[in-house]
């Protein structure tokens, strides 16, 4: 699941929680899902490093061909 979808689901959960008409079992389940989603979101944000690729061309199907780019200091 991508970051946006996770965040959207997390917001849905918060809205349900705020309504407050849930059974104990259900709200516990939602809270646990929410905690899991937010952990995954954080991971996605922190894990991703900025990788700069240099475009060298396109293959026959039009897919970009790249190579890792390291800026010279």
């Amino acid at each position: 699941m991508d970051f946006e979808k996770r965040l959207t689901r997390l917001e849905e959960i918060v809205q349900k929680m705020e309504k407050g008409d849930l059974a104990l079992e259900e709200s516990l389940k939602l809270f646990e899902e929410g905690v899991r989603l937010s952990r995954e979101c954080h991971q996605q944000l922190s894990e991703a490093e900025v990788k700069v690729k240099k475009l060298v061309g396109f293959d026959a199907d039009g897919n970009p061909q790249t190579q890792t780019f390291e800026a010279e200091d």
Partner: protein
Amino acid sequence: MDSSIPASNSSSVLEAVSAANLSAPAVLTVEGLNKRIRQLIEGELPLVWVQGEVSNFKAHTSGHYYLSLKDSKSQIRAVMFRGHNARLKFRPTDGMEVIVRGRVTVYEVRGEYQITIEMMEPVGAGALQKAYEQLKTKLKQEGLFEASRKRPLPPHPRHVAIVTSPTGAAIRDMVNVLSRRNRSVAITLVPALVQGEAAAPHLVQALKTAWRLPNLDVIIIGRGGGSIEDLWAFNDETLARTIAASPVPVISAVGHEVDFTIADFVADLRAPTPSAAAELVVRSTEEVAQKLRLTERLLVRGWQQQLASFRHRFSGALSNLVDPRRRLQDLILRNDELSLRLQQAAERHLQNRRLQVQGLRRGLRSPNEILRRRRALVNVAMSSLHAQAQRHLDRRQARLQRVLGLLDGLSPLKVVERGYALTMSNGQLVKSIRQVQPKQQIEVHLLDGRIQAEVISVKEGKLDGL
């Protein structure tokens, strides 16, 4: 005429002519004369620099420019062929003071001469500045700089193309900024020349190449600082029009903060420097992280509210459950009172009968037979009364027991006092041993937390052991 034409040269030609035919003056054909003139002029004036005012300017459909150069005293016809005028950064207009470099050429057919211009530069304001102002005015009039044309940046760009030189300062600065932020943005560098004559068409091509990248959110086009000539490619008209036509929003990042190029005006967003462009892209990602943190706080708050609400409902239920004890006491008291009253009633009844008996005894000389019968009646009444009282009591007692039994069974109070727990497995409340297997992970939820546990074994049986 230029003083560099040596008179001796002309006379030597005449001498040569005279020497060839001394007897008669040399007669030249018109064609021959023009040919000689041409040879003379073109031979003697290989390259000249002339300053003058442009007049009668005409851009022919063939692409050639025709004009005259004049000053207050004189004028000369001039032509600038397509191959040369294509390199002009500005368009000559009548009245414009220019310096030209060119060759004087003779058109033999008509016996006319003109200057063939190879290079032209406006006098006064620099040529580049002039060209810049002209293009800026033109594109502005076309509406290419309108704020309404500017597209907003996508809020969370995930794929950014950078059109710049792979060896320049710009890409290095941007990579530095982006690495520092450590955020999830894919960057594709589309290499392009950013300086020199070939740079503008190169940038146009690179921009169009970037459009072919899949899922592209934004393009940054730019280069590091330099002189106005260094940045010139970003004032190119074709590049400006290509930026305006981009299907993906374009951020321009050319030179330093003080440098404004045509690309800056036509781009959706102008970043003062390449580093600033990188910051613009990752700032949005930082906003995402902030939103995430806010949502987390709301989640925890929502959960705490839920818990508080459950606690409230639970303690409400508990306080209701205390009542039956008091009700039991009430019932016992009432029971005692009733039995007392019953006893009193029975005694009063007996007393009445006794008085009756005494009265009868007094009034009727007490025949033993009557007395015996009365006594028997009293006995019957007494035992009936006792039995009735006992039955009443028994019924009350039985009902009380039933109520108490029921309440006891329903009341979580005692269970709570021993340690109330919800057992969960796979998100389900465990209500039977059939829901779990040995080795299965379960969670035991208590009021103040939860215990992760693993099922060791499952045994069927009643709760007798407790």
